[in-house]
């Protein structure tokens, strides 16, 4: 840790010098300073450049049906296994309250390897047809290709990847239609049998006959209801039978007993017992932390673990979530984004199935007081070896500015950099996109150009998505790895990667899910900082394998596929 701190101080000093130089130069000769301006961390890639012309249709109506304001999600996935991440975007669609003449459709964009994308939706057959919400990608049948699960207000859709650029809708056969209103979903191996199971967040009971008037009679205006007026529901856990079918096994467990209004979920290992647990964010009721006790026994411990309620016992409007070992103590920490006035929480794992909220100490609480957060992700954007954080925000009520002078409908993105000791808000250095506002919902992180710098995709409600290319200075080394399980689940969710560079040891659990309605690039980018060589890298594969393999010859600054038992 001493080494890390020293490096942090040096980095801070260098940065200060750069800024001072910039200020001095600006004062002396403004016109000549453009070359000295530090490059913005993220650059927005416009639709004209990327070729992504798709726009989300939120179906916003005068009736203000709640599903209109909760989508959409997005995903980075390499559907054709060409080593370049592609993009999937979820759209609204026909429902009991929305009958468009030309139904909006989801979109799959293939990465052309040159910074542009091509719409291959029709060929792939993944346009869907219901009022889409989010997407969860994974290789559920361990055939080496990523499949797609699309949640919806209405019928969910499971697309099986046919390994030839097309997908088949296997929802009915798989028995995962999950009617009602589903939001985020996560693939993970609940029972460590080597096959990915599926947890699907269920939001509230909603329908034309259950629609409630919320608004101002005098103004004749409706606004989106706060979800507390709708009945809570149970989320769903589908066990993978290994033959292309699933069985709902949440019944009779705490997953079924816990009535929530679930929006975000991440699968992670809270107590390091090798079994993936679930942290579920709920809107207006308490969050759930489902501890996986094995043999399909789930214990909901949100209240005693102190992640269920605010510090004074109030349920908040939990939306986006993530899990990561942000303080590098070997234990998974949690993050949840809430609605304005509630502030977001950064929960440090106390190593005893309880958590402490460190949002204040990391500048999170203050920065998020007026914001409503959805998609988010811990990731090391500059590859210095510490996990940073990006937050995508936007108020769910498009009329909020009538009721509040300070809370806005469209809100800015936030970027936090981990300086080795704590997170600091560096949104001001994020780039022009961080000076704009969005009706952001889903957020996915992935490396679109394979340069080792993780890029960001944001799905905006009622607008085009925002694609941000990471232009961080290439001053740090990195290793990109794609884990390929053989004895365990193919995507190796639950694997623990440990590595040492220049004598500094790091560790990362491969979590699944997180963010909001979205899926990230499956690959892990491990930042090495200034170290120019890797001492070693170890993979502890998840059960049922549980095997530990150590590598010393993993090349730097490129992606490598590591296959279990194929050293």
């Amino acid at each position, binding site marked *: 840790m001493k080494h890390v701190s020293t490096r942090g101080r040096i980095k801070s000093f260098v940065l200060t010098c750069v800024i001072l130089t910039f200020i001095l130069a600006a004062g002396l000769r403004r016109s000549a300073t453009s070359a000295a301006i530090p490059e913005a961390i993220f650059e927005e890639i416009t639709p004209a450049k990327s070729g992504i012309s798709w726009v989300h249709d939120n179906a916003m109506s005068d009736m203000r049906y709640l599903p209109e304001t909760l989508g959409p999600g997005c995903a980075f996935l390499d559907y054709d296994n060409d080593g370049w991440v592609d993009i999937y975007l979820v759209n609204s669609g026909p429902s009991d309250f929305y009958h468009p003449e030309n139904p909006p459709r989801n979109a799959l964009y293939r990465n052309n390897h040159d910074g542009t994308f091509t719409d291959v939706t029709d060929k792939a057959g993944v346009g869907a047809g219901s009022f889409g919400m989010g997407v969860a990608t994974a290789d559920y049948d361990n055939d080496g290709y990523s499949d797609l699960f699309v949640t919806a207000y209405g019928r969910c859709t499971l697309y099986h990847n046919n390994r030839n650029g097309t997908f088949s809708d296997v929802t009915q056969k798989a028995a995962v239609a999950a009617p009602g209103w589903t939001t985020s979903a996560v693939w993970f191996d609940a029972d460590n049998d080597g096959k990915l199971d599926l947890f699907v967040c269920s939001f509230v009971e909603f329908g034309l006959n259950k629609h409630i008037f919320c608004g*101002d009679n005098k103004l004749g205006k409706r606004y989106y209801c706060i979800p507390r007026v709708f009945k*809570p529901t149970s989320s769903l856990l589908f066990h993978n039978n290994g033959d292309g079918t699933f069985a709902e096994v949440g019944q009779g467990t705490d997953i079924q*007993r*816990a009535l929530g209004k679930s929006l975000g979920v991440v699968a992670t290992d809270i107590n390091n017992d090798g079994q993936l647990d679930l942290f579920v964010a709920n809107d207006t009721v308490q969050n759930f932390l489902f501890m996986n006790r094995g043999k399909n026994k789930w214990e909901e411990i949100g*209240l*005693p673990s102190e992640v269920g309620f605010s510090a*004074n016992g109030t*349920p908040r409007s939990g939306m986006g979530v993530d899990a990561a070992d942000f303080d590098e103590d070997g234990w998974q920490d949690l993050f949840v984004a809430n609605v304005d006035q509630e502030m977001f929480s950064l929960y440090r794992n106390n190593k005893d199935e309880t958590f402490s909220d460190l949002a204040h100490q990391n500048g999170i609480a203050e920065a998020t007081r007026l914001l409503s957060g959805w998609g988010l992700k811990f990731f090391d954007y500059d590859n210095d070896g510490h996990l940073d954080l990006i937050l995508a925000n936007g108020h769910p009520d498009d009329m909020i500015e009538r*009721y509040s*002078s300070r809370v806005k409908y469209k809100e800015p993105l936030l970027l936090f950099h981990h300086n080795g000791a704590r997170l600091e808000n560096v949104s001001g250095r994020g780039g022009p996109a961080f000076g704009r506002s969005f009706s952001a919902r889903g957020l996915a992180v992935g490396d679109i150009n394979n340069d080792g710098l993780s890029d960001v995709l944001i799905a905006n409600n009622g607008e085009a998505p925002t694609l941000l290319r990471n232009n961080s200075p290439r001053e740090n080394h990195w290793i990109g790895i794609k884990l390929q399980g053989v004895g365990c689940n193919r995507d190796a969710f639950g694997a623990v990667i440990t590595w040492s560079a220049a004598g500094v040891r790091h560790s990362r659990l491969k979590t699944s899910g997180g963010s909001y309605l979205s899926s990230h690039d499956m690959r892990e980018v491990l930042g090495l900082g200034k170290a120019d060589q890797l001492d070693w890298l170890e993979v502890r594969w998840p059960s049922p394998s549980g095997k530990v393999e150590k590598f010393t010859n993993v090349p730097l600054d490129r992606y490598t596929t590591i296959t279990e038992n194929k050293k």
Partner: protein
Amino acid sequence: MRSLGRTFRLFNFRLRVVALFAILAATGAEGGPQAGTAGKPSGVSTSSDGFAKVVARATAAREQDRIAEALSLYEQALKIRPRWEEGIWYLGTMLYDQDRYDEARDWFRRLVALKPKNAPAWALLGLCEFQTREYPKALADLKRARFLGIRPDDQLASVARFHTAILLTRFEEYEMAYDVLREFARDQNENSSVIEAMGINTLRMPYLPVEVPPDKREQVLLAGRAAFDMAARRVQNARSSFQELVSRYPQAPNVHYAHGVFLLTENSDAALEEFKRELGLNPSHVPAMLQIAFELLKRGSNKDALSFAEDAVRLAPNLFPARNALGRALLETGDVAGAVKQLEAGVDLAPDSPEMRFVLARAYARAGRKDDAARERAEFVRLDRINRTQRLGAHSVGGTEIPSGEKPPGL
């Protein structure tokens, strides 16, 4: 009604007994007949000719507005069948309409003894007790009616809600009263009585509307307008009204405090300044101290919160929010033993407060007292469910199933 007439010009509630019977039926009240069967009371034995004949005459008299005769006949019928609930109901409501509140009250007491889950009967009992100036009883019974639930779109619900709120204000339960009054704004039920009640509440005056000194009337109405607009989310209007209130009455008690409460979500820095101005006018203003303490706790400025919370406890040791604030500040600054002491005192003061139980559970957990923490958490869950169901409806409650047989707090 005579002495309190002006207060209730918009809540002058006259019973329409047939319609109210429909209320009873619709709310699932025990023993009430189905709508449209009011003339044929349930439980009437056709074999008992004497009783049936009296009932028929009573019904006819009531339907023809021969109230004095109807009252006499219902009393006659009830002498034959003392537990005839429908008869008690008609008698009570007719007496209420005749301003004979003490007699009506006694009949409604008989009715709730027979039907303890009948919310409209509890509400009418509370309203009678209000008229007979038995205010503590009136508040308790109106609270019980609220807990049991009256159909919210009903006129009786609105009247009961109003009287609950003004009684809460009179008994200085200002925050709870505001929560109730806010429902009028939610329903866009805007009238001068509500505005006046909101003003009294906002200025933290322990008065019923008729008790407000005439020279305070204008200030009350201005504060009420601001508070109603705030509750109705008309932020611009509320801002203007609060600014006018502050500029016209800068030295009046609770004006800066009320403005601060409005500003908390708009501009918390400005809110803190307003609370401090209130403290400048009244250094013993405990609510202002607590608002500052809770805002500082929200900001993570726990050490700064500590001194305000300590002052609040010193001035108001029997106020549970003060114990809560101090307990939380001590907990967050590492004095776990001190926190437990304060929070236990808070729970003793307010055993039905879910917030107190929640924070005490956290403190016990921090102190390593696992069993105590588990007990307090269980109590928190129970109370929180009841509390949220009452305030926000059953759909606002999440988590695992609601245990049956829970009793409402404070009853």
